[in-house]
């Protein structure tokens, strides 16, 4: 009974947030060029991020309950990365987002585009908290894996005092592990970049 109640409440919240997000989007669009532009842009980005976090939480919850199943389809990594970048809703003062395709690349690869997008969006939002001037979204092939990465030029891992729930990392790990190819499974790598800043990598077999 308790579970059913929680599920209903969360479902209602999710729908209400989706509706709110649509409204804030309309307001943000209508106020472009006005003195409210910055505030409405921020409002919209916040509701979008909130909505994404709730969906991420639900996905993680379901993954703990019944496991996460990746619906593998052939996607073009480069196109997909561009789509993810284009679909990001960022606050007006956010740093620039750059997309890079590293060689060797693959014309297509099998992954769940919905889950992968969710992981990358969570990683970008995290990177935005620390980036000084830019966030780089990249893809390329490495050791037989497709590797998506999100890099920032912030202080690097463990060098900032901002608290984190760890929800984003747990979600990305669940998503990575849902991707398998034969005996190989996906993985998440978090490390510091030699040139400074942190990098998040999603390895998909």
């Amino acid at each position, binding site marked *: 009974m308790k579970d059913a109640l929680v599920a209903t409440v969360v479902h209602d919240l999710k729908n209400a*947030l989706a509706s709110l997000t649509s409204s804030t989007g309309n307001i943000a669009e209508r106020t472009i060029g006005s003195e409210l532009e910055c505030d409405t842009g921020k409002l919209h980005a916040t509701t979008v991020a909130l909505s994404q976090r709730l969906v991420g939480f639900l996905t993680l919850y379901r993954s703990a309950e019944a496991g996460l199943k990746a619906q593998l389809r052939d996607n073009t990594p480069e196109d997909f990365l561009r*789509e993810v970048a284009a679909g990001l809703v960022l606050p007006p003062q956010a740093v620039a987002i750059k997309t890079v395709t590293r060689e060797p690349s693959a014309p297509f690869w099998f992954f769940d585009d919905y889950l992968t997008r969710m992981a990358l969006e969570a990683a970008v939002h995290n990177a935005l908290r620390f980036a000084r001037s830019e966030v780089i979204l990249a893809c390329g092939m490495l050791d037989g894996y497709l590797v998506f990465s999100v890099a920032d030029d912030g202080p690097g891992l463990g060098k900032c005092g901002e608290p984190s729930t760890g929800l984003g990392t747990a979600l990305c790990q669940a998503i990575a592990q849902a991707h398998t190819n034969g005996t190989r499974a996906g993985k998440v790598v978090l490390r510091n970049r030699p040139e400074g800043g942190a990098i998040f990598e999603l390895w998909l077999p």
Partner: protein
Amino acid sequence: MVIIQNSRVSKLKALLIDDMSGMRANLRAQLHQLGIQDVAQAASATEALKAIAQQPAGRPFDLVLCDYNLGGSTNGQQLLEHVRSKKLLLPATVWFMVTAESSYDYVATASDYAPDDYLIKPFTATNLESRLMRHFERQDALEPAIKRMSVGDLEGAIAQFSKLTEAGSKFTMDALRLKARCLTSLNRHDEAKAVFAQALSIRQGVPWAELGFARALRDAGETEKAVTAVVAISAANPTLVGAYELLAEIHQARGEDAQALDALHKAESIVPSAKRSRAVAETAVRMGNMETATAAYAKVVASTRTSVTKNPYDNAALAQIYMDTGAPDKALEALKPVQREFANETGFQAIAAAVEARAYGETGDEEAAAAALERALELAKNADPEATLAVSKACFALGKDAEGERIITNAVRANHEDARLIAAAKKVLKDAGREEIAGRIVDAQVQEMLALTERALGLAKKAQLAEAQAIIAEAIAGLPNNVGVLVAAAQINLLFISQNGLDIEVATRVREYLARLDALAHGTERVVKMSAFFNELLLKARAEAVT
């Protein structure tokens, strides 16, 4: 955020289907953001069908955004299956299924008529635009090959698909899937197997490639290997409905109804649908398992009661089972909900009247029984053979043996190659103690048509092709599904093309004969050779047209 409108997207005419008015408003706002102004809305499957029926011929819908959960008894997938199977929309109309994340796994499993893409809520206008652009890019890349497929130039299509895969296109997997489909249509099952294997070498475990490989094994006559493969696929993908359906097909073809029923039950339990329950019911009827058949038909009738997929023949089948199991009251009850709505469906009305005649006969109301039988006989004049059998059964039940014999004779004579109908007719006659009639009628008709076929082949040998074509056409009309007659008809018409050049009408006829042969004598050497020869002739004609 400002979206730069893409002219290809903004010109689209869209139909939104969602039972929640708030969601429709959101979707409409997103379409407006993309510049799409021509938007129709529907709150249910029924409204959607109305909108589709009213679309002007010159300006049909280009895009359908349909929520999976439509609140009523028809979901988005059932609506899609109905619309696609009845060809109510153009093949090029894009159908995006909108789903909640929680039901995506479930929805994505049901892939008989797969939508062009899935959109998982919540999504933005930019997400929608990206999906549309991706769809158009794929459509553009595959279009030259698909055009060839649509005009029957399968060899040409195969060559195009091969070019795409050799170039390492990002649509390689689509190209392989479609190439395998062409090869299957041409009965080149070993080559189809190789293409599926190629797809699996790119990525092991791709469900469509694994299922395709298993199907190609079955089509190539390697049935045991096919069964082993399908069992392995379903073990690795327990929710892949297609695997159980293929297994059921294989068992049915071998006459293993019990195993087929088991596989159909599994498919139905994973993704319940009226179609799957109906398949369970039909197999159970064949097996004489009336308890399962009754339960399955009752489920179909209940689940489609307010749905666009409602089919009165389900009620008719259920009513007949009730009659056969001694429950006339339930039989009449089963017919009631659809009798008025389908007043113009002659076949159904004929069965309904026949069931009424039997039911009143059993309850002793002779006057009502006679009136119902009279109505049934009148309707049977324009009804399908299945309905005629039901009427003849009523005749026998009410002691009108001569009338029953007369109409069943006509039904059998006109359809003596339909094994299912003959089996059903034999059962009716057996129950009435007149089984010997069926064999007699079939034999006479077959002998007459085979004599015509011999005459046509004799004329072809003497190079009198036009006369041979006319006579074989008569034999085909009389025996439309006889392998011997179809082979002769294909041979005569192929000979005509090889001597006189490509004639579209004759080529269309050959294609139809070969397709029927493919269904009747799948993978036999003679049919495969004729298909290959036909393709050679087409290639030659194309080469000549180019030079």
